[in-house]
């Protein structure tokens, strides 16, 4: 059971070394947030900066998001999923492998604030965390201990690749993830009737504000102009029309197919708590069952949509 302070110490140590030796111009990690249950991405450029870097059970943002097109040498504090996204950025030519250094943190999962609030609905003014297994939340006249496994994010519960195997170094002992993600939820959903599925997905996105936080929090969404911002032709209306919203989510799912590493950044960013990853998961399952492809697992694999097999099976094409 590693202490968070231990990992924090190692991250700082590594970051300082990288910056002093010139191996990195910037180390992108996390610093403590300004409100309870939050961290913020932090860009350390000097060895002194590094003392602000922390490790936490709330280090949810996928920092690979800051890689695309970034000049210079970058070191990234990366969980299992983030490291895969970073590798994806390399395979998609968003950054050179030689300019990237991954400080891998074997991760035991990150906390979903909504689940914490569900367990402790009183206003929380302080959180203490010493290990990666539990937290204590405090407020006016209360102090509640919460086990992390009870409040893990959905994607963290089913995470298979918790240890960033491709990282340049690991700052903690390797951890094992789930044996395999069986996609039971998606398969159950697909067992329902067409009408039920349509009703489910319409209900799923009914609160969507189209703030596009899911898109912007996603390390895959680096297009200079997103299809939702195209104006001639304008593919998407700007109103709250349900079908426009559905189109956004479907096309987002499609664009992430074969690239998504289930980091959960989209769901965490969503201010109205939509399970936006449902769309991605359908695509993940499809990609895996068709092409046995998992993104971000090696430096030289080609994303499935940039290639083909002459014998790809598609029985539905007549």
């Amino acid at each position, binding site marked *: 059971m590693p202490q968070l302070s231990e990992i924090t110490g190692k991250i700082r140590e590594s970051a300082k070394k990288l910056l002093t030796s010139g191996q990195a111009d910037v180390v992108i990690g996390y610093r403590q947030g300004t409100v309870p249950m939050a961290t913020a991405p932090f*860009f350390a450029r000097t060895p002194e900066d590094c003392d602000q870097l922390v490790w936490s059970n709330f280090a949810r943002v996928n920092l690979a*998001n800051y890689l695309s097109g970034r000049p210079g040498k970058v070191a990234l504090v990366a969980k299992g999923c983030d490291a895969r996204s970073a590798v994806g950025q390399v395979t998609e030519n968003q950054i050179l492998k030689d300019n990237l250094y991954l400080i891998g943190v074997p991760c035991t999962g990150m906390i979903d604030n909504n689940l914490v609030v*569900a367990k402790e609905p009183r206003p929380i003014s302080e959180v203490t965390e010493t290990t990666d297994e539990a937290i204590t939340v405090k407020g006016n006249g209360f102090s509640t201990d919460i086990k992390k496994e009870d409040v893990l994010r959905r994607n963290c519960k089913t995470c298979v690749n918790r240890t960033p195997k491709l990282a340049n170094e690991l700052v903690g002992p390797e951890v094992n993830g789930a044996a395999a993600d069986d996609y039971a939820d998606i398969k159950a959903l697909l067992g329902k009737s067409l009408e039920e599925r349509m009703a489910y997905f319409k209900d799923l996105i009914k609160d969507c504000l189209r703030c596009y936080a899911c898109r912007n929090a996603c390390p895959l969404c680096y297009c200079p102009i997103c299809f939702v911002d195209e104006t001639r032709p304008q593919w998407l209306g700007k*109103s709250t029309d349900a079908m426009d919203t559905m189109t956004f989510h479907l096309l987002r799912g499609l664009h992430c197919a074969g690239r998504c590493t289930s980091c959960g950044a989209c769901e965490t960013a969503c201010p*109205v708590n939509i399970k936006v990853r449902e769309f991605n998961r359908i695509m993940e399952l499809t990609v895996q069952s068709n092409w046995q492809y998992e993104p971000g697992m090696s430096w030289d694999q080609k994303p499935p949509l940039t290639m083909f097999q002459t014998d790809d099976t598609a029985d539905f094409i007549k």
Partner: protein
Amino acid sequence: MSEYIIKQSALADFFKSLANGRRLLSPQGVGDKCKLEETAPEKVSLDFTNTHMSPKSLLFPQTERLMAFHNEHDKPNGYVFQSALDSGEPTVVFGIRPCDARGLSIANKVFQNDRFTDPYWKGKFDRTVFIGLACDAPLPQCFCAAMGGSPFGESGLDVLAFRQTDGLGFKALTDKGTELLKAAGATEADLAGEIKSLEAKAIESQGVKPNYQPIDNLDLMDLFKDPHWEATAENCLNCGVCTFFCPTCHCFDIQDENSERGGVRMRNWDTCMSWLFTVHGTGHNPRPTKTERVRQRFMHKLKYIPLKQDGVRGCTGCGRCVVMCPVNIDIRSVALKMAQTAPTPA
């Protein structure tokens, strides 16, 4: 005397009288489902912290039809826009927080500015009575007092209500408010002292007030040119969460949509965080990267609006953007950085 009380036992009747001939809205639901909803008088609850989203959509819906036309070129008024102004029913909102009411009053000065009046906003604004409920226990992310407001703030409200040991106390702030309280049979009382001490207690519970005062005196261009913006914006994902949740953010886009029968011109919430927001037809963009866009948002809140609205800041300290931001960009820290800007020597 403009203060009144209603005892706990008479509250049910009070809410009934509010709903008489008007739509009664109040916060319903908990957590991320807490929102202003049409409420039966017996369902009004005083037990909430604040609505998940700001109440601006009441007067400024995310999508609003402005006008429409029929696609009939041969008829005299076919293919000509007709106003689709709909101000809705008379409404009373009970339980809006003072920070949010203040947000509406700031937006109100934009929608009813020195040259133009927005009839869509005004119609709804004029038909709504706002009864605020003072905050006696502000949340950790609340900082209304630091921004020049108060948990007992009065701006934008017709009536300020606050909890008493037995029932509610009220301060009428407009004629509309006084009328409403009188009609509901509220008893006059002298509560000024009580309000003062409750307010002081609530402000105190927000902790130490950071000093943002220097921003007011600093030159616009000094604030604008300060080198901190690059670092301040570095985290930003350029999503629109802060703007969509902000009670004073009022920017919108105007869009036309068509069908065979005709078309509608509508306005939709827009966000200054978007690249598309300012891009010219030529492709030139005055705010091309997130640094300019983030700067715009904070400068707008903390400098531009105060310049235009007699020093009133465009942030009400409701704390929504602080907790909603996926990367924890905290307007309080940004404001402090701005306050530390070094002025150019004269």
